[in-house]
């Protein structure tokens, strides 16, 4: 017997053992009605749910299509961006390399390889900074101890702080390195060959401090030397002497033989003056045919100065 019918019979049973037929029928009808209601409710809810889910699926399809189109567009843009980035990277005058937080190479341009004479195999992506530093030492770094150099560079890098450094190469070139940590724990470094720049700076400095004709120091250098000697005099009591001279009738030489001969004469005089003093003394051309000499005095100041003056006059007045 179905358990529900058994329950209905039990509920409809009277104390006398007879059944209350009306009560039993009511229970049975209720059960049928409940079953019908449940079936209708189930049908309705499933139908509505299917409708809702279909609507959601349509919405999801639309969303997927929109997202896919957006992703394709984004991918195209990224490809174009990558091309531009690659072009910029490969055409930039500086070497560039980028490493991840595991110290493995993730970006490197051709210029970087050229600067350090590295092969593509030595700079393939994923190479460690240690292997690249070791290769650089072997190819062109200075003459320092290779192992010490690599460890020092690694220690510097692992501080995760920005720094700038200049490094002389074995072949005389000078490289500047600008190191910048990135937020993800990696870093990017720009390597610049500053050899020509450094040489030009040295040349400019030389021109600014020397007479272009004779190669002697100029007026500015002489002033520095005098200030330095004055300071030493006040500080240590070291005396010094200054000699000023010009060439008699020099204008006549220029006027008679022309300026090229006058220039040659000035160069000869400069050489003779230089031969009369110590390397630590200073000789400057003040302009035209005027020269000045600064010497550190020794022994009797007066006598020493007279001796130097005599040597200078003798040298200049000797036949040419």
């Amino acid at each position, binding site marked *: 017997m179905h*358990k*529900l019918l058994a*329950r209905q019979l039990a509920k409809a049973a009277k104390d006398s053992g007879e059944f209350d037929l009306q009560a039993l029928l009511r*229970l049975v009808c*209720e059960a049928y009605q409940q079953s019908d209601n449940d079936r209708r*409710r189930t049908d309705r*809810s499933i139908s*509505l749910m299917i409708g809702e*889910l279909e609507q*959601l699926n349509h919405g999801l399809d639309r969303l997927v299509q929109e997202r896919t189109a957006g992703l394709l567009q984004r991918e195209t843009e990224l490809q174009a961006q990558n091309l531009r980035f690659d072009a910029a990277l490969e055409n930039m005058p500086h070497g560039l390399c980028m490493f991840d937080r595991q110290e493995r190479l993730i970006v490197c341009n051709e210029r970087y390889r050229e600067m350090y004479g590295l092969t593509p195999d030595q700079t393939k992506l994923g190479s460690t900074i240690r292997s690249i530093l070791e290769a650089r030492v072997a190819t062109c770094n200075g003459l320092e101890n290779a192992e010490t150099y690599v460890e020092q560079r690694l220690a510097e890098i692992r501080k995760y702080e920005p720094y700038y450094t200049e490094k002389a190469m074995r072949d005389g070139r000078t490289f500047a390195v600008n190191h910048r940590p990135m937020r993800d724990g990696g870093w990017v470094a720009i390597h610049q060959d500053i050899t020509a720049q450094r040489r030009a700076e040295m040349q400019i400095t030389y021109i600014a401090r020397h007479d272009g004709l004779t190669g002697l120091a100029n007026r500015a250098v002489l002033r520095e030397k005098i200030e330095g000697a004055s300071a030493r005099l006040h500080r240590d009591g070291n005396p010094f002497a200054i000699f000023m001279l010009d060439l008699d009738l020099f204008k006549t030489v220029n006027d008679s033989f022309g300026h090229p001969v006058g220039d040659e004469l000035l160069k000869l005089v400069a050489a003779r003056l230089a031969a009369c003093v110590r390397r630590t003394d200073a000789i400057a051309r003040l302009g035209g045919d005027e020269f000045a000499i600064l010497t550190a005095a020794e022994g009797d100041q007066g006598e020493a100065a007279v001796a130097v003056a005599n040597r200078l006059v003798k040298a200049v007045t000797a036949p040419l």
Partner: protein
Amino acid sequence: MRVTQLSWSEAAGWGVVPTDFIHADLVFFFGGRQALACGARYRELRAMFPDAHILGCSTGGQIRNDDVIDNEIAVAAITFAATTLRAACEQAASPDSSRSCGELIGKALAAADLVGIFVLSDGLSVNGSELVAGIAAAVGKGVSVTGGLAGDGADFRQTLAGADRPPHEQMVAAVGFYGPAIRIGHGSAGGWDEFGPRRCITRSQGNMLFEFDGEPALDLYERYLGDEARGLPGSGLLFPLRIFDPERPDHDIVRTILAVDRDTRSMTFAGDVPEGWTAQLMRGNFDRLAAGAAMAARQAAVGLRKSHASDQIAGDQIAILVSCIGRRLLMGQYTADELEAVGAELGPGIPRLGFYSYGEISPHRVSGVCELHNQTMTVTTIAETLDHAGA
């Protein structure tokens, strides 16, 4: 511990109280609102059990072992060997005062040796979530809080509850169990099936729900209920609502509807329905609901045994069953299936008393946090141990 069951009906009155239960310590009674409203039944119980704490409430049907009964008051009287009890009863005039009411109950019962609390609350004017949170906050972790919200059949008009006084509306009653001998197990499970799309609660306030995904929630319920929408709020129980915080999807809670407002298109639930949470409709299958009830019984039985592995239960046990009125409305004459499933799981010889409610209270099966549940079968098992009971 010893347990006896009694009943009252209009025709037969009270059954005979065994003489050795005259000094019972605790009496639970559950009945229809109309049978309890006059207070006479409480006074009769008080006369029968002068020493007992007496707790009771109105229901959506009384549970007595395998049967659900409507025309009788179901009673259990319990005598403890070594457990002490304390009762508390507070007024909860509105959902807004539910938390403070819970805190008052918790403070009244809090003690170092408090093991568990069983709560019976008004089912319509109380926000059950807030009530339980208030009690739990006052008594702290490690104290199990179980019980339920009183019912009023499928009418949703007035619910009554009381402790050591006649049941009255807007009241919350509770009893605390103290001492090393008491053992309390608990289990709660639903067995409902989720169906349909997941929806976002886009507008709500406390336990009032206004919108799902920008659409009035009441529109959705009326659409799914069809002709049965006339029976709202009762018929709304046929489609319980599973809700969860999207960030904690395993911590789901089922909510049951208490009222609807057709003017504002809002629905009031027995507990909070927080804005931003995910919601999904549920529907019931008789067999799986019965299996859910069996699972609750299993949890309660295992919990009772697990509390102290070396325990030996002394004397009787009792299981208090609080099941949701929604389950009964759906299962109809098949309701007995879930009661039989609980009985089969607990085993013979354990008396079962309880009621169909507007909300169930039990620790969450995953988090262990005591909270309000809906549309579940909740089982609380109570026993004393041999060592401490002196039996």
